[in-house]
C-alpha cells in the first residue's frame, strides 16, 4: 500500500517492543461482539493511483462543466477567473499540510496571511475588524444573528425578503433550537426594485428587535442604500447586519460598513475559491471594534516575540469553545483556512486597481446580458440598479425554461422555483448572472437559447 511506510519486518520489531504477539492484542479493549475478523464487507479492496483516477474521472465526465458552456448562474456562488498562481501557492505543502496555528513560532506564514486577510476583509466591507473566516456565508450569517443576540440581549430577528433563501433556512433551523424569533417574508418581483422590502423593514423595527438582516446586492440582484435602515435600527437599539454573497460587487459598490451596517458578513468564494459544487467556501465576518470580544471565530493578532521581533498569534481565544466549554460564543472551531488563503492571494494579485477593473467588467457584461434578454419577446427585466446579477420575468415557469436551455447546452441562470419551491408567485422568475468570464458569444447564445425555449 503506497501510503503506508511500515514493512512487515518493522511491524514485527515494533510488536516485540510493545510486547504483543499480534496486532489483535492491541484491540482487546474492543468488546468481542464488535470485533471484525477481516476487512469490512461490501467494499472493494485497495486500488492503484491509475485505477482510482480512471474511476473518479468517469464520474467527473458526467457533469456539465461551467467553463465549457455559456454559463449564467450565481445566487450565492460565483464563477470568476482565478489566476494560475493562486492554486499553485495554496498547494505549497507548508500551507496545505499545516495545522491551525496554535504554535505561532512555526506558523508565522499562516498567521501573517490571516492578518493580511483580516485587514483586506475589514477594508472591503468598510468595517474596523474582521475575523480569520468561518465555514461559509450562510453560517456566517447565522453567527452574526447569534452575536447580535449576545450584544442586545433581544431575540427578535427581522430577515429581509431579499436574503438568500438558503441563508434563511439555516437561520430557521438554528433559531428553532435556540429560541430566536424570526420574521421573514418572500420576495416580490417588484419592477424596478425586485425583493426590495426596505420600507416594510423600517416599520417592523422596534425596541424588541435584536437585528435586521439584509442582503446587498439582494438575492434578485437589486442594490439599494442601507443608510436609512442602519439609522433606524440603531435608533431602536438594534443592529443592522448586511450580507454580501458576491465579494466582487464591493469593487464597484459602496461598502455596507460605509453605509452604517454594524456587522457585515458574507461569502468569499467568488475570490480565489471556485465553484466546487457548493463547498468548501469561506465565510467572511467583520464588525465594529467595540464588539470584538463578542465576535465568533479565530482571530490573528499582532504581538512581539522574546527578541522583540514582530510576530502574529491567534488571540482572544478564550472566546473559543475549548476554553469556555459550554459558555463559548459559538461551537465552531474550524475556520476555512486554505480558502481564506486563496481569497487573500487572489485579492492581493488584484489589488485595488484590479478589483475595480474586475468589478467594472462584471457590471458591463451584466448590462450587456440584460440588454440582450430584454429584447427577447415576453421577457421583462425587473431590476433598476444591479451589479452583475439581475432578475427577469418569463412568460412561463422558469424551471422548465432552465431545463430546456440546458438541453441546448446553455446554463442560463437560476430559476426562482429552484430556490422557492412552494412560492407559485415567483415561479416565472429567472436570476441571471454574468461575469468577466462571459463573452459576447455567450450572451448571444443565451439570448438565442431563451428565445428557442420560449418559442
Amino acid at each position, binding site marked *: 500500500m503506497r501510503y503506508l511506510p511500515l514493512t512487515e519486518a518493522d511491524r514485527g520489531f515494533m510488536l516485540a517492543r510493545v510486547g504483543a504477539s499480534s496486532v489483535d492484542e492491541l484491540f482487546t479493549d474492543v468488546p468481542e461482539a464488535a470485533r471484525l475478523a477481516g476487512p469490512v464487507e461490501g467494499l472493494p479492496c485497495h486500488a492503484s493511483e491509475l485505477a482510482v483516477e480512471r474511476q473518479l474521472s468517469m464520474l467527473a465526465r458526467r457533469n456539465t462543466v461551467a467553463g465549457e458552456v455559456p454559463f449564467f448562474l450565481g445566487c450565492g456562488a460565483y464563477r470568476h477567473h482565478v489566476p494560475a498562481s493562486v492554486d499553485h501557492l495554496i498547494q505549497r505543502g507548508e500551507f496545505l499540510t499545516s495545522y491551525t496555528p496554535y504554535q505561532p513560532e512555526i506558523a508565522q506564514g499562516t498567521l501573517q496571511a490571516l492578518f493580511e486577510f483580516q485587514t483586506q476583509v475589514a477594508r472591503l466591507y468598510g468595517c474596523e475588524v474582521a475575523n480569520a473566516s468561518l465555514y461559509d456565508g450562510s453560517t456566517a450569517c447565522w453567527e452574526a444573528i447569534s452575536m447580535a443576540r449576545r450584544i442586545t440581549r433581544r431575540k427578535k430577528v427581522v430577515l429581509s425578503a431579499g436574503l438568500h433563501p438558503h441563508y434563511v433556512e439555516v437561520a430557521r433551523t438554528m433559531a428553532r433550537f435556540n429560541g430566536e424569533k424570526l420574521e421573514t417574508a418572500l420576495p416580490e418581483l417588484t419592477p424596478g426594485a425586485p425583493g426590495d422590502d426596505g420600507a416594510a423593514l423600517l416599520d417592523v423595527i422596534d425596541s424588541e428587535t435584536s437585528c435586521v438582516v439584509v442582503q446587498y446586492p439582494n438575492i434578485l440582484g437589486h442594490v439599494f442604500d442601507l443608510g436609512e435602515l442602519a439609522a433606524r435600527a440603531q435608533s431602536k437599539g438594534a443592529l443592522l447586519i448586511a450580507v454580501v454573497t458576491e465579494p466582487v460587487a464591493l469593487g464597484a459598490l459602496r461598502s455596507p460598513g460605509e453605509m452604517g451596517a454594524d456587522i457585515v458578513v458574507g461569502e468569499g468564494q467568488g475570490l480565489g475559491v471556485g465553484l466546487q459544487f457548493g463547498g468548501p467556501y469561506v465565510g467572511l465576518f467583520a464588525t465594529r471594534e467595540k464588539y470584538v*470580544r463578542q465576535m465568533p471565530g479565530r482571530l490573528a493578532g499582532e504581538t512581539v516575540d522574546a527578541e522583540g521581533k514582530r510576530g502574529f498569534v491567534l488571540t482572544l*481565544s*478564550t472566546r473559543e469553545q475549548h*476554553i469556555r466549554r459550554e*459558555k463559548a460564543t459559538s461551537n465552531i472551531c474550524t475556520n476555512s483556512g486554505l480558502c481564506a488563503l486563496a481569497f487573500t492571494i487572489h485579492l492581493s494579485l488584484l489589488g485595488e486597481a484590479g478589483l475595480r477593473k474586475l468589478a467594472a467588467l462584471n457590471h458591463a457584461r451584466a448590462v450587456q446580458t440584460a440588454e440582450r434578454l430584454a429584447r427577447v419577446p415576453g421577457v421583462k427585466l425587473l431590476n433598476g440598479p444591479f451589479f452583475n446579477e439581475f432578475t427577469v420575468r418569463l412568460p412561463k415557469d422558469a424551471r422548465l425554461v432552465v431545463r430546456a436551455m440546458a438541453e441546448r447546452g446553455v446554463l442560463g441562470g437560476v430559476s426562482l422555483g429552484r430556490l422557492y419551491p412552494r412560492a407559485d408567485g415567483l415561479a416565472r422568475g429567472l436570476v441571471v448572472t454574468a461575469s468577466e468570464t462571459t463573452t459576447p458569444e455567450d450572451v448571444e447564445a443565451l439570448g438565442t437559447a431563451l428565445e428557442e425555449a420560449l418559442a
Partner: protein
Amino acid sequence: MPRYFTREHEWIEVDGSTGTVGITDYAQAQLGDIVFVEAPPAGTRVDQSKEAAVVESVKAASDVYAPASGEVTEANAALEAEPALANSAPETDGWFFRLTLSDPSELEKLMDEDAYKSFCASL
C-alpha cells in the same frame, strides 16, 4: 471597613449598604496574566454565589461569583482600559464592581481575612 472573603476567592469590602467586589491576590496569581474583565454594568441584579463577572487570562476564562446579592451601582472603568490592574492591585485599584447590598445578613456566610488566609494555606 470590614472585608469578607469567599471560598471561590472573591473579596467584598462593606461600607454601610455598599459593597465593593474583587478577586483576591491568590486568585490572580493562579490565573496568570489577566487580559480582560467583563464586569456587570450598573443596574444589574446579582445573587450571592451566582455568576456576576468573567475574568479572562490568555488561555482561560473564569466566572466570578457575587459574594453577596444586590444591585450593581458601578463597574470599574479603569479595569476595562487596564486589565493588568487585576494582577498588580487585585485587592485595591483592581476592584471589579460596586453594589448595593439587598441582604447584609448574607455576609455572615463569608470568611474574614484570617479564616481566608488559613483556607488558602490549606489548598
